[in-house]
């Protein structure tokens, strides 16, 4: 029994407990308790991880435990974490915790809703705690079923269309990933040993370069679809706009990071030579994604679409940072995963709460809401400032590090893409400030809005948690980049740099 396994067991126990709940009160409390335990577990995990590192253990992955699954094929459930996965586990537990409170009043089929939501989270947790490609893929796919149902049943707007589009696009991504994984598996033992799906063991051998070149696009694009790689990001705006609040939070906040994590952990780490050969192509796509997403956000009038396009832009920045192959930019990319995860969850939570009151998400139908609901409004402004990269918030540090790292490449190509990508900071400022100006400031446009109430306690809890972490990371980015991630990037960097 490994400590890491608790991250999957606790959600499953929560799901079983929800099956026996009688009404919505019990359901939501069970979910809240389960996810609070999960939050505490992540805190404990961080402490344990730091203790292990403090003891001077410098293994790539710690708390490694091999649970045999399919011995004849050597597919195992190998657990193990490094600083990056620890931070992403923490991110997941923060977002799902806030998500449960954001869906406090989900009356319609409440049991099914919370079960699907938590199963979704289980898939994410499972993905981050394993280092066996097969097990990772199982958990990755686990998120598909609940996703379709969550958007299709509890969504708004063209929900059936969005749900189907999202599910099928992500499944098409899986199609690519399967080919990539099997290709790696059958080249994991060039000296005739036992084939393996274990990340660590695969990384000890060099996969022939022509094989790498064949497999890399499959894995990069496959995970890239989930990480909003242009032009395969189109599921994201529709999906996020139609999904219920908590699902948008979890999806934009965590699941898209799962895509970037897959790109980093599998495509870049295991196929470094191919990453060098083909990196520029994907760098161009990432740059287009950054600018396109930001421009797309300017054009939108629906709050959720604005935020969804902004997520596309920010997630493309993660890929951009990862493709720079240096410490600073990759560190920044990982920090961006966490910072954007919390930030976008905050936005979606707030949008859901505002929509619950005004019944519209169109910014031109709202105005002066800051006066009516000062708390939610202020939180939105703080989130916005963090998003546009104001110093003192997490977004600033992450973007600075990415662009700083990008600028260390002296060639023209890198300079050009970096300048283009950096222009998104300005565009981001435009759409954030415009949104804040239009619907929070100014006169109240709709008289009905005068009687709206401000946040209730569960909403305060949900928003407060997210705000707390945004600020904490902004003030102590060092804790994430140095203490937590520290040398966890080193193995990947070493492989990426060795032939350069």
């Amino acid at each position: 029994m490994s400590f890491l396994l608790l991250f999957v067991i606790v959600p499953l126990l929560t799901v079983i407990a929800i099956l026996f709940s009688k009404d919505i009160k019990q359901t939501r409390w069970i979910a809240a308790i389960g996810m609070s335990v999960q939050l505490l577990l992540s805190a404990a995990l961080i402490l344990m991880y730091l203790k292990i590192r403090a003891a001077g253990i410098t293994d790539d992955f710690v708390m490694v435990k091999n649970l045999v699954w399919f011995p004849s094929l050597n597919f195992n459930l190998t657990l193990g974490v490094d600083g990056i996965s620890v931070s992403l586990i923490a991110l997941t537990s923060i977002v799902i915790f806030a998500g449960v409170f954001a869906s406090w009043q989900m009356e319609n089929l409440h049991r099914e809703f919370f079960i699907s939501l938590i199963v979704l989270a289980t898939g994410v947790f499972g993905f981050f705690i394993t280092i066996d490609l097969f097990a990772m893929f199982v958990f990755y796919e686990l998120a598909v079923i609940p996703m379709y149902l969550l958007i299709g049943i509890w969504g708004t707007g063209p929900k059936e269309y969005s749900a189907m589009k999202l599910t099928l696009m992500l499944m098409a991504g899986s199609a690519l990933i399967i080919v990539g994984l099997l290709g790696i598996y059958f080249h994991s033992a060039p000296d005739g040993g036992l084939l393996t799906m274990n990340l660590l063991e695969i990384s000890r051998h060099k996969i022939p370069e022509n094989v790498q070149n064949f497999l890399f696009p499959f894995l990069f694009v496959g995970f890239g679809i989930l990480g909003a790689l242009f032009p395969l990001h189109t599921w994201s705006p529709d999906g996020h706009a139609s999904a219920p609040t908590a699902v948008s939070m979890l999806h934009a906040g965590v699941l898209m990071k799962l895509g970037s994590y897959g790109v980093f952990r599998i495509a870049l780490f295991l196929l470094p030579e191919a990453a060098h050969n083909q990196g520029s192509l994907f760098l161009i796509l990432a740059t287009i994604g950054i600018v396109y997403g930001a421009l797309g956000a300017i054009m939108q009038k629906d709050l959720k679409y604005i935020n969804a396009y902004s997520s596309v832009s920010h997630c493309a920045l993660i890929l951009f940072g990862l493709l720079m192959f240096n410490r600073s930019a990759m560190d920044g990319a990982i920090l961006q995963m966490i910072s954007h995860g919390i930030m976008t969850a905050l936005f979606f939570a707030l949008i859901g709460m505002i929509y619950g009151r005004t019944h519209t998400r169109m910014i031109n139908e709202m105005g002066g809401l800051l006066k009516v609901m000062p708390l939610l409004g202020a939180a939105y402004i703080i989130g916005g400032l963090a998003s546009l990269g104001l110093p003192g918030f997490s977004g600033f540090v992450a973007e600075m590090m990415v662009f700083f790292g990008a600028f260390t490449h002296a060639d023209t190509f890198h300079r050009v893409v970096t300048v283009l990508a950096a222009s998104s900071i300005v565009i981001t400022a435009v759409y954030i400030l415009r949104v804040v100006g239009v619907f929070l400031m100014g006169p109240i446009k709709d008289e009905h809005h005068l009687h709206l109430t401000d946040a209730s306690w569960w909403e305060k809890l949900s928003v407060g948690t997210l705000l707390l972490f945004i600020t904490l990371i902004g003030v102590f980015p060092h804790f994430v980049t140095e203490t937590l991630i520290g040398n966890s990037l080193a193995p990947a960097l070493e492989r990426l740099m060795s032939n350069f």
Partner: protein
Amino acid sequence: MTYSIISIMRQELGLVVIALLVLFFDLVVNEKNKQKVFLIALALFGLHTLAGFFPFEGGNLFGGMYSTQPVHILMKNVLNIGVFLVLLMSASWLKTPQIANKSNEFLMILLTTLSGMYFMISAGDFLMFYIGLEIASIPMAILAAYEKFKSRSEEAGIKFLLNSALSTGFLLFGLSLFYAAAGSIYFDDLTRTLSQPSPLVALALTFLLSGLAFKLSLVPFHFWTADVYEGSPMVVTSYFSVISKGAVAFVLGILLFKVFPVFEGLWQNVIYTLAVATMFLGNLFAIRQKNIKRFLAFSSIAQAGFILLGLLHTDNLGIIVIIYFVLIYILSNLAAFGVAQAVYAASGKENIEDYNGFYKTNPRLALIMMLALFSLSGIPPVAGFFSKFFLFTAAAKAGYYWLVFIAVVNTTIALYYYLLVVKAMFINPNPEPLPTIRSDKYLRSALFITVIGIFLTGILSPVFEYIQAMVDKF
């Protein structure tokens, strides 16, 4: 000698005894107790299924005409599990007034076809193989036409019979060409004498493969499938789509891997092309279907295309994944058919749009249907994911990465239409959903078994490892 015949052929003999006992009881019991024969048959067949799992050495009989090895027994066991479930699901249908007076013949015919499949699997020469095939397929036409008071059922029977005759003709022609090429019909002689691909062998193989492709309803030999499936009684449709398909897949695997491994270069391309055509056409046609039986028929055509992925390369892993895949396919497809059966028995409805709002009134059945469909499309944590993944592993092992890609793209297409049914049950509003259904205890226990199977055969590895161990003794 006599003892060894009994011991080696115990599964076939056991099955024939059960079939004859059913016939015997049907003759001797009075009208009132006719229904009880079903219980006897069910109990005996259950015992027969369990008995198959006792470890047991194989052997050859009749100078190599018949041979059985652990792997053959395993294949028969997999079919037994499926037939047992089909029997459970048929209980309520057999009680309907128009069928009741001939319910016991139904059991007998069903078991007879199964014994034909046994002989086909255990065949050591083409004569035994052919006899087995005929025992299996001719009575199936009777099953298809069992609701003879319905014209569609009659039509299904005649269509099946004609198509089956045509395909058998092809197959027989192929077999005679093999005899011409090798001068023998024994598998051992064929593997020994035929070592060089020649035009004659290629022709023979083509006819043999087309004959089997008819039975497995691979594109372009699939035209009979949808009509026959739609017209036949629901129980028979489920039997066709899982048991007979599974048996033919096994036989195809045995023939290709054990008899014609030297001609791998010849049949690999054929299998490749058939797989791609079958997956695409099956899936694309399934999207358009409005009737749940036709829908499942086309989905099962596509599934047969997936099975071929395991047959591309002569390798134990291929046989392992095919058995594993068929087992899970049997469980998943029967779960889907079971729900369709419950709905049909209660309301007579079999269109997908009748399922709108199904979850509101029948949450359990809707969940089972959803699980079954997710298992068919291959999404974790249910078993279908694992069987598909291992199938892809087998294809990738032979180096067919693009085929794996095509197959997973097809999984995505399949997911689309499976989700349409899920959408109907869970999302589409319906002011008058189907009333709450209370099905009989046999159907419920069958569904229970399938659900347990769908959950556990994938996520827990012992089943897969057991199959692996059995095949390694091959």
